[in-house]
């Protein structure tokens, strides 16, 4: 959304006329009547404003620019999104400054195992001799990394398949891609994940991202396809075709900017799923034991009988942190939804 004040000639600042996008208020959403032009110089078309010149005391004509509120303002306006952003910022802070928040190394297993929380070990140590607090802090890094990368992976695949198949709706290409998508939707994800993980010789972030992306794209591709189908029949797309633009340019340059908030919210949802998937996979023993992650902590806690040994913290805290980070993402998504649905802005608080 470019700012137009800089390019507009001097004149009164553009006033906000109406809430944009309140679909029910057809009157209010449309552009104001004849109220165009820029201050002193009425555009040639506007005969009404020409007419008003003959009348003394006619109201001054403004440039009524119904600019929608800035995206960050919309995001911040939602209480849930606010909480989500703050929580997420908290996790990002931890991830970045983890080494400064703890004196220990997350891979250091030289502590006396099974210590109760103390000044030295805030959450105690686990049976393997790791400092739980330190591992918790450093685990944030992996969760965020997998969230970002997994979300990106899913979004990219979903975009490519969804957009192409949506734009080519009705052709064999779309039939093929849609079929693939529907198939991917019904194939049980967990066995597929297990196969992929089992087939790969090494474990690690890359593999997890791959697994998450390859198993998680279908639903997103479907929504993107649906969205592009509605957008594709819009006249501006036909106009771009008449303007001589090619398919890829139309899809990614003309159509995509109109579904930014959908893409973003899809990305966040995919990130959430990726973080959860990492936890699940790690819990089943498919993770990489060399990395410190919350899923890995849960797995170790479970495999080492944390509950029966009374090490509640070891099991509870990573689980709660996982839920918190995914919740923060979901909350942010509430705000993102407001971007595309102005009606919701008035609903939610």
């Amino acid at each position, binding site marked *: 959304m470019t700012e137009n004040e800089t390019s507009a000639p001097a004149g009164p600042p553009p006033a906000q006329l109406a809430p944009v996008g309140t*679909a*029910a208020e057809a009157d209010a959403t449309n552009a104001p009547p004849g109220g165009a032009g820029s201050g002193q110089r009425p555009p040639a078309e506007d005969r009404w404003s020409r007419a008003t010149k003959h009348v003394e005391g006619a109201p001054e004509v403004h440039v009524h620019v119904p600019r929608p509120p800035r995206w960050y303002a919309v995001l911040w306006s939602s209480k*849930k999104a606010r909480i989500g952003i703050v929580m997420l910022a908290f996790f990002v802070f931890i991830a970045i400054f983890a080494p400064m928040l703890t004196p220990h190394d997350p891979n250091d297993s030289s502590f006396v195992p099974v210590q109760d929380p103390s000044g030295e070990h805030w959450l105690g140590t686990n049976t393997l001799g790791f400092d739980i607090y330190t591992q918790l802090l450093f685990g944030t890094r992996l969760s965020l990394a997998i969230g970002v990368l997994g979300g990106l992976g899913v979004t990219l695949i979903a975009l490519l398949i969804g957009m192409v198949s949506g734009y080519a709706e009705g052709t064999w290409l779309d039939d093929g891609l849609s*079929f693939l998508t*529907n*198939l991917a*939707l*019904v*194939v*049980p*994800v*967990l*066995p*597929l994940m*297990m*196969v992929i993980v*089992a*087939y790969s010789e090494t474990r690690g972030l890359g593999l997890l991202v791959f697994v998450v992306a390859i198993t998680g794209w279908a639903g997103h591709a479907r929504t993107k396809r649906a969205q592009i189908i509605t957008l594709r029949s819009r006249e501006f797309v036909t106009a771009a075709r008449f303007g001589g633009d090619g398919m890829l340019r139309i899809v990614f340059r003309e159509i995509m900017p109109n579904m930014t908030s959908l893409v973003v919210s899809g990305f966040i949802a995919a990130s*959430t799923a990726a973080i*959860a998937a990492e*936890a*699940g996979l790690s*819990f*089943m023993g498919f993770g990489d034991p060399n990395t410190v992650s919350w899923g890995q902590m*849960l797995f170790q806690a*479970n495999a080492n009988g944390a*509950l029966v040994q009374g090490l509640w913290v070891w*099991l*509870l805290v990573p*689980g709660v942190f*996982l*839920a*918190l980070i*995914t*919740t923060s993402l*979901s*909350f942010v998504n509430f705000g993102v939804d407001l971007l595309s649905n102005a*009606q*919701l802005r008035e*609903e*939610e*608080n």
Partner: protein
Amino acid sequence: MRYYARKTGYFLLTLWAAVTLNFLIPRLQPGDPAEVMVRQLTGRDGEIDPTQIEAVRAMLGYADENVFVAYWKYLQQLAQGDLGVSFTYYPFTVGEVIGQALPWTLGLIGVTQILAFLLGTFLGTYAAWRRNSRFDSFISVGSTFLGNLQSFWIGMIILFVLAYELGWFPAVGGYGYTTPGWNWLFVADVLSHAFLPALTLMVTAPIGFILGMRNTMVQELGGDYIRLAQAAGLPDRKVALGYAARNALLPTVTSFALSLGVLMSGSILVEQLFDYPGMGRLMGEATSNRDFPLMQAILLTTITIVLTASFVVDLLYGVIDPRARKSR
């Protein structure tokens, strides 16, 4: 008519693709079933005995045949309804094994899914109708958080607290000492055993329905026909339930079928945790044992259930939504 023919054709095509994937996915995993089996007998720290492997291999009778030949055989067997013999439960057939496990999962998942659907749509409807109320924010914030908890984690906590520490419920298994049969003793036994796994699933299962229903309902409430109904002075309850909820239910019904598949996947961990004798556990077991026939059959059953459910929903959709009847 054409609509149904197309849908049926699509259903069959997807089924075929799923059947083929079923064949491929298990075979892609590394590991030799005989070795896995012997490893299980000897235990992890034991030494694998080549003589045993030889014998077990001879028993299971699979050969290193060409993949295409194997695929063709598999299709032929499948056409005859023969799913093969399970490696894990040799010499029982896969059919017998699944026959034992399926009712448990269908019972557990079916009941929780239906309960989740009812509870979820009810709460979602109410939250949407009373939107921006305390109840609404409580429901939407609470369910977001709960929905983000890992089901295995919830299960572990529930198991430990309710079963072991407090001892209120039996911890593991599908039933205890009672003899299976249609007597109320057994039914009570089964119910008490199903309670904890069902509770675990119920923490997260309704969340999708709650949020989905709430959102579509809020959307429907902005519709013109709602405004007209309000202008016409129809009672609130009628507007909420007869008008908005009725329309909002349509997309939710579609998601019902798909979420069945998700729930089945999710039940693997929960069933394992509670030693529940259902399909989820069986799947985990078949996978770790490289029990190809069993894995294939379970995947096939799962996919068939999901596909059939969405197929039925597709067909039903015409009944629920009059618009779908003609236009397609």
